[in-house]
């Protein structure tokens, strides 16, 4: 049993006729994802790759019995796109869009609490359950089915580490990006809770970066609950200067908060092995799993 997405997932793509939306809708379909509908206001009644396009999320859901959404809508319109998906009771809602104002994200997350919707992202590569389904933009070929759950704040670094796991013969249960923005939906702690209940996940990889306290919060949760599954981690940004935004809106050290050193210290204190370099993850994982057994 994977988390968030699986073989049965029936997704719509919001913004399916845009550049990114149409390109990735095709790749998701090729991967085996059930993309049952697309939504672009004004393009209702057309088709894209045999996928019917609707003007509104509500009609798309009624006609196709969709259960989740992937959003590629440009940032000025992303807030309403997310609300429209939640009003139609789609869950999870994966927001790929980058560059959404933080204030809009706060409204999205408040709406999500009211609707009990799981939001992945924004500014995320999405979610993939290897061999079953992907709601996102990650290259499917670097992932293999297996029992390692992976959660990350970054896109390409996730592919890098997933590829090294796959290369080492270690497959993954579900991999997801929680998003590179300061305000995101699912947190590391939420993901840890989901993987805890998932019988298909035996161990976990967390990929953190500078900014905020998501890694420290995860460390606290792991320590407080004596987390039952082995967790290893990598944290990017050890050489990042304070006060500078490193690409992601959320990757910034503010005052004394958000340094890589603090995150690594917190994780290590919680019993998480932290790799010094990305390629160190597979070996750490093997050792950690063996130590537990």
């Amino acid at each position, binding site marked *: 049993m994977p988390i968030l997405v699986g073989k049965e997932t029936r997704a719509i793509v919001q913004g399916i006729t845009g550049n990114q939306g149409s390109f990735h809708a095709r790749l998701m379909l090729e991967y085996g994802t059930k993309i049952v509908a697309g939504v672009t206001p004004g393009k209702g009644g057309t088709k894209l790759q045999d996928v019917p396009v609707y003007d509104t999320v509500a009609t798309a859901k009624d006609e196709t019995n969709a259960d989740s959404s992937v959003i590629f809508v440009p940032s000025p319109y992303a807030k309403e796109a997310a609300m429209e998906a939640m009003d139609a009771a789609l869950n999870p809602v994966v927001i790929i869009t980058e560059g959404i104002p933080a204030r809009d994200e706060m409204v999205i997350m408040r709406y999500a609490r009211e609707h009990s919707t799981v939001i992945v992202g924004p500014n995320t590569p999405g979610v993939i359950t290897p061999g079953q389904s992907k709601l996102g933009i990650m290259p499917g070929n670097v992932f293999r089915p297996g029992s390692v759950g992976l959660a990350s704040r970054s896109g390409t670094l996730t592919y*890098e580490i997933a*590829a090294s796991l796959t290369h080492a013969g270690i497959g993954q249960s579900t991999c997801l990006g929680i998003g590179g923005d300061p305000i995101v939906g699912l947190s590391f702690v939420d993901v840890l809770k989901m993987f805890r209940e998932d019988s298909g996940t035996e161990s976990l990889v967390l990929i953190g970066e500078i900014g905020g306290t998501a890694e420290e*919060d995860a460390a606290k949760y792991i320590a407080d609950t004596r987390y039952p599954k082995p967790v290893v981690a990598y944290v990017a940004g050890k*050489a990042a200067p304070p006060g500078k935004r490193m*690409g992601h809106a959320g990757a910034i050290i503010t005052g004394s908060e958000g340094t890589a050193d603090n995150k690594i210290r917190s994780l290590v204190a919680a019993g998480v092995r932290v790799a010094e370099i990305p390629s160190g993850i597979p070996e750490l994982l093997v050792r950690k799993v063996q130590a537990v057994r």
Partner: protein
Amino acid sequence: MKLFEFEAKNLASNLGIATPRGAVASSAEEARDIHKRLGGAVVVKAQVLVAGRGKAGGIKFALKPEETFDRAKEMLGSFIKGENVRKVLIEQKLPVKKELYISIAEDRMNKCQTVLASRQGGIDIEEVARTHPEEIARRHMDPVYGIRGYEARDLALNLGYGGQQLNMISDLLTNLYRLSVIYDCELVESNPLVETQDGRFLAADLRMIIDDNSLFRHPEFQERSKEPGAELTPLEAKARENNLAFVELDGDIGIIGNGAGLVMATIDLVKYYGGQPANFCDVGGGAAADRVASALGIIQSSDKVRTVLVNILAGITRCDEVAKGILDVKKVVGLKKPLVVRMVGTNEEEGRRLLETAGIKPLIHMEDAARLAAKGA
């Protein structure tokens, strides 16, 4: 994007937030004239974006216009924490009774704006949080309903005010919150917020940071956000014009990669192997040849760069496009520095073939590439 104090105060005054009387000057003569107009004692404040200028000599008092002239002369053109002072703000000196702290800041954990208010103002709030956490009142703002009158009054009570002053503080808080909403602020901070001896409240200092992601709906800031100067180095400004995420660092190894996390990890690796990165440069997902070319062009134009490391893990990005970008630079202006390329993923073979024809041999593992670049290639 950070605003200068005088810019923040102009926006605040327009919303009815009281600030000390004053004006901004670019020369010592102007500063002296402003003092003459204001009369009394003044404070001369260096306009820089870094925090903590007071301890670095960026805030001085002056009793006479000639003194103001001297202080302004010293400050203008000097450097405060590495930042060039180009303007000074001359303001009337306030009859201070008490210094308070108020901020409205993006709260990642609670996914909202959070107001912090403290009776201990004028000093580093992180220090107060460490030593006297009970001295800081917090209130999470609902992103839909905003600040409600009773919430503002509750904070005013926490600051120790009643009667007429309770309403004055709660109006002030409401206006500061409006300021934060109207301009999509990551941070609005008044430290200190001053209570004068006659019982009024003024934002003696004011910092505002605008959420860069909201700039599309703030045409008033769009030109300002691309200016080189206090916040951006000339190289960073040039990169921003080309829509590259770019941060200049101290070292001599230029770094280009796709994806913020991967580039950060690349920088860490170069340091791990003993090298010093010269920059962070993310060409982003799906980067086409021209983006790679402009990144490489900007980085090799810097005199301090001795080696350039390109690290591409192609998912949506295509290796052949990356190779074309590198070859464009080679053809048009030439490769001016030793180049290390690590490139794997989509269309790897075609990209590899293109580079190898031009005598560049891309590597497979980012560790190998970082190690080679750290040695100076």
